[in-house]
């Protein structure tokens, strides 16, 4: 049998391994072939391909906003956008359908909590450099200073893996003009430079040369040019390239890339329009529908968002993102039983993680299935890791508050703080418990901690205002209630308190 095996052509085997995604074996064979004959184009091709595939991440999904991008952003058109036309003011949906903060909590960047974590769910933009730098750096809000230095360096570290005889391709020694003319090799070389080496400058040069050599007829190269421009932050140029590629050949990716540029340029309506057109060309393309739903969610227009997520079900009933988002929406729309069905479906589909059990536990609690609730939290804690155990404890505390077991609640919130010292909500609730015990100073300290960690947490501001008002410190109370209304303008209790304080002041 061994003899038989030896008759196999190594190139055939390498091709077979590449198809079966056994990249290490493929690279090994190709390296051997290249040792024998360094000019073997086929081996070179397959090695580059295998190395690229090892680190491939879909560029449509990879996106992180750095501080520099947000502040040195000179692409947005209007500084003060009209309601419902910008991501910068998430709460101001034009249709008046935005949900109230009192019902659905906000993330640390002042955006409704989403049911699905994706790279750009934290893209609230700070107003000034000072604010951006002061924003606390917890593990959850960590934001690289620029995207060029943050995530992509991590993604591109493949170039740092030690290879026994130096890097496979040294971009600085490449004669890009020569490779650009070779239609068989240039695409794989581009992918290698872009994904594996993360060398955007050389990729861009290669793409530009190759576009020329293909006489501007290959839409793929235009798409790559757009990708490079996007990475370099030249969004207007990226837009042009994607538009041109789209005109030549409408593909799903081209729509998604162009929409991504529009989102980056803070033109959500243009993005929505584009998704609409894309759906006409590719009816039932789930990624386009989801993209549209995400934009609606980003605008705070949750009703439309859910409409699109429901549309996803017509074409792909097992889309995890859609199920999760609809579940979350139902939960915050006071329908825990229906939300429970969504989450249970996810569990049946094999999504087994802390967050899911946590959500199911909460749904069970609100659906008055108390016995299941605690079991779910028990499981959630069993599965939890350091990052999310704090949230589970927080929710257990929340439930204990609901059951009236203030002792358990107190311990649970303490546990949450032990695992995550920056859990603002836990501080807030702990403070409320202290307040009920009559330990006013301790409560005040906890409220202040909560506020320092998360400025957007209107509850802490309001509670502190109430506390100060009770002690007769009307000045602080007034200040805090104003901050509370800044974070959540429609909060009725805050409004009442403010009116009351105003009355006091006029009496004085």
């Amino acid at each position, binding site marked *: 049998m061994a003899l038989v095996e030896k008759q196999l052509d190594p190139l055939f085997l390498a091709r077979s391994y590449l*198809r079966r995604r056994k990249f290490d074996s493929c690279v090994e064979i190709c390296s051997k072939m290249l040792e024998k004959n360094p000019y073997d184009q086929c081996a070179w091709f397959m090695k580059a391909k295998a190395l690229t*595939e090892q680190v491939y991440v879909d560029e449509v999904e990879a996106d992180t906003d750095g501080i520099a991008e947000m502040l040195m952003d*000179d692409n947005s058109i209007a500084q003060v956008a009209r309601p419902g036309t910008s991501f910068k003011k998430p709460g101001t949906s034009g249709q008046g359908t935005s949900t109230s903060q009192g019902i659905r909590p906000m993330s640390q960047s002042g955006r409704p909590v989403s049911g699905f974590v994706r790279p750009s769910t934290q893209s609230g933009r700070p107003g000034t450099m000072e604010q951006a730098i002061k924003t606390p750096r917890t593990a959850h809000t960590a934001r690289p200073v620029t995207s060029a230095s943050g995530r992509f360096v991590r993604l591109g570290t493949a170039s740092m893996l030690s290879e026994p005889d130096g890097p496979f391709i040294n971009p600085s020694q490449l004669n890009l003009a020569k490779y650009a003319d070779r239609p068989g090799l240039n695409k794989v070389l581009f992918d290698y430079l872009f994904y594996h080496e993360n060398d955007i400058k050389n990729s861009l040069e290669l793409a530009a040369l190759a576009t020329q050599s293909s006489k501007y007829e290959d839409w*793929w190269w235009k798409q790559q040019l757009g990708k490079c421009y996007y990475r370099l932050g030249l969004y207007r140029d990226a837009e042009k390239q994607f538009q041109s590629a789209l005109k030549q050949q409408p593909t799903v*990716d081209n729509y998604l890339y162009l929409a991504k540029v529009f989102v980056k340029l803070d033109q959500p309506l243009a993005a929505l329009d584009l998704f609409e057109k894309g759906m006409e060309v590719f009816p039932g393309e789930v990624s386009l529908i989801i993209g549209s739903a995400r934009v609606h969610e980003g605008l705070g227009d949750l009703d439309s968002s859910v409409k699109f997520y429901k549309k996803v079900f017509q074409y792909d009933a097992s889309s995890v993102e859609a199920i999760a988002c609809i579940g979350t929406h139902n939960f915050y729309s006071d329908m825990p039983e229906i939300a429970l069905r969504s989450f249970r*479906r996810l569990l049946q*589909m094999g*999504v087994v993680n802390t967050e899911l059990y946590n959500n199911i536990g909460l749904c069970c609690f609100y659906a008055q299935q108390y016995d299941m609730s605690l079991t779910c939290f028990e499981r959630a804690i069993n599965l939890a890791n350091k990052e999310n155990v704090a949230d589970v404890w927080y929710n257990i505390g929340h439930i204990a508050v609901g059951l009236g077991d203030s002792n358990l609640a107190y311990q649970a919130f303490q546990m949450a703080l032990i695992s995550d010292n920056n859990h603002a909500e836990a501080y807030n609730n702990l403070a409320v418990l202290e307040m009920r015990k009559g330990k006013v100073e301790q409560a005040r300290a906890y409220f202040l901690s909560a506020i320092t960690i998360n400025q957007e947490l209107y509850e802490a501001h309001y509670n502190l205002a109430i506390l100060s008002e009770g002690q007769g410190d009307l000045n602080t109370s007034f200040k805090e209630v104003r901050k509370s209304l800044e974070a959540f303008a429609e909060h009725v209790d805050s409004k009442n308190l403010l009116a009351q304080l105003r009355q006091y002041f006029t009496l004085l």
Partner: protein
Amino acid sequence: MSLFKSREWWYTHAGAEEEYDTCNLCVGNVDNSPDKLEKIVVGSLQGILRIYCPRTKGGNHEDMLLEYQTDSPILGLDIGRLVGDSGLYLAILHPRKVTVCSVSVDTTTKDTGTFYNISQIYSHKLERTACNMCLGSFGSIKNKDFICVQSMDGMMSFYEQDSFAFARFLPQFLIPGPLCYVPSTDTFITSSSSNFVEAYRYQTLAVSTESESKDQIKTGAGKRLRVDWKTNIGDNVVDIKIFSGADDNATTIFVLGEHNLFALRENGVIRFMKKFDFNPSCFYPYGSLVEGTVNMLVANHSRTCYVWQDTTLAWSSSFQHVPVNIRILTVGSLKGHIVTLDETGKIYVSYLGTDPSLQTAAPVERREINYDEKDQEMAKLQQVIRECTKPIEHAPKITDQPDFSIFVEPVNGLDVVGVKHEESDTEYPTVTVKINLRCSSKISLDKVTLTVAPEVPFYATQRSVVLTNVGSGPTSLATFSLYNTGQRVASDLTVPLVAHYTNNHSSPRSVHNSIHLPLQLVCSAACPEKSAAHKITIETNKPAMNLLELFSEMNCESEGGQNGCVAFKTVSGEVITLLAAKNSQKYRIQSNSFIALYIIIQQFLMKLRRHFEKIGGTQPLSVTFPGPVPLQEYFDIIDSRFELRLRQRSYREMLSQRAQQFRAIQRRLLTRFKDKTPSPLQNMDTLLEGTYQQILALADADLQTTKALEEADHALSTATKLMLLLVKLWCPNLDDKQATVLQSCLTPDVNSSDDVGWEEMVDASITMLLRTCLAKTTKEQSVGAASLKLPSDTTKLKKHIALLLERLNKGGTLSLNTYADKVSHRNKDQIESGS
């Protein structure tokens, strides 16, 4: 992610340690048996051919019809009408040859069951290493299948049954792609390495061959071949399959990419596409019940099988393995079994069902709960928690004596050799202080750290000393060398001393004391000066002392001091003259520097009191200051410091404004540079450079102001101390308690690093005093409290200070009883701990 799992109907493992790729599976009635049962044919890269016929659920060894070792690896298998008759034959592709075989039942041995034979019909030797092949009735010849083999270097060889037809090289070839034949258009579909799907007509291939000689084929010198059509799909092609519906016209070419699935029409136009969020491994299109649509089975590398109806997901279920090829098999009357082969040779025949795919999390440990035990444990834990969260007052009180006391030996005179300046080689006056630790009880401490914290102008050569094994010996000795650099006039001759350690109960403790420095460290005797800018006169009720005697340690005679007149010169150069009146009971202290007066007055009064205490007598010594209080000098110091504060603030404001400007210019420049059409910079770079220089200059100026402000802080602090001293002597009924209140209001702690400055703090406290205990009318009581903001000038503050002192002198009392009590209480505590 799938809700269901596929149900296994039949399973076998075709050989251990063998490898299979996507072309190594085919399904069909290969032995032409009359019952038309479909057989599964697999051939491994190790060259073993196996044929299975699944008949019953589960499967047994009888299902294997044939196992046959060939002499070279099997690269591909296919079934077709490859021999003249209408029967089906098996084509096996090896690297260097393609063989056509017939599979038939062995009729010679009947008694021990059914055996199958494989026999070669014909075989072609291949010039080049083969990659893959496809069968089809090329040239639209009915009921006959031909073979087309693609070699690794892109040569298409055509075999019309047992004869070689022709061979052609594909243009611009690098890596062979999947190969397919479309009967309706008589075209071959393949993919190029630049992500194009290409179509070549059989006609075109055949016609251009005729003009070529055989040599050219061998050398590979092919003529340019025209492509029929090509489509750029921008994705790497994994597999290509052809599907023609019931009506032959609607042939669709399905192309499975690495991240997308494309459906192309016969002319290469994209009909629809579908983006995947997974990595597909193989797929198989089949007829759908809904007209106009095609169903597809797509398997991926995360062990899931999807059924798509065009672009709508109809079903998904999980698999047991990652298949390399997927087919549909009919077993008898049962249609629609899914055959999957993975790379290790596991073959599953399964069907879709509604078995839930349960990936359960590790179950939570379930034990019989003993409630009594749990309750006990709970109670125990609650106890622990309660103990941990006990408030501080329940903690054991610190009543025990400190483990040792610090004794500072009195310092007598300066060291002979002083500490030298690093550069100028001048000697600073230096004293060496010896410190003893005496343990009160028989305990030994491993480590005690002694720290001194001298204030400028005093420095210590060593700020802390670590003593080990304290208590085991009789005493522990430490020495500190303190010296005076003369940067400014000293205002305090005591230096705090702290010993901190961990006691035997491993809790941290500290013991405090202070070092009293001799006056010699601050000043030396000098020749008295007759005139001076600032003069202070003090009256006593005892006859004037002999000053030489009083300051005996200073050696004043050597510099021309007399009984009634001595002078001192501080290290920083100020001369202070002390005069005693010959006839009256008055003393006068005068100097050109206002703040230098303080240390001498303070020391003089101290010595005076000590002297008369020693003598004793019926009438205690009383010292008074007749006034007027030197307010003008004091206000000058306040003003100069305030000016510095204003300057610092303006520098900071300018700095922030310039920084903003700098960022704005940077932003504009960035836009310019980003612009594709280069535009002139309009001197923006010069502006950037200029702003940068400004920022640097401003930062330097701010630094200098901060330094100057530190000096001013010290001056103000010393002047305030002097004022407090004088006010106490000036106002007849200001007792110690009230003096502490005054000190806490007119505080000598001046710190410019705080957000709230000294001026507003003092102003606020004095306003409070004036409003409450010193108020004369009710109108004054209703004056609003001052806000803690930097005032625009100091007139208000000065007015308030003058008013305060005037009222105090006229007999006003600082009787904020509760408040004063608390403060004095705290002060006493401090004193106690200090001794």
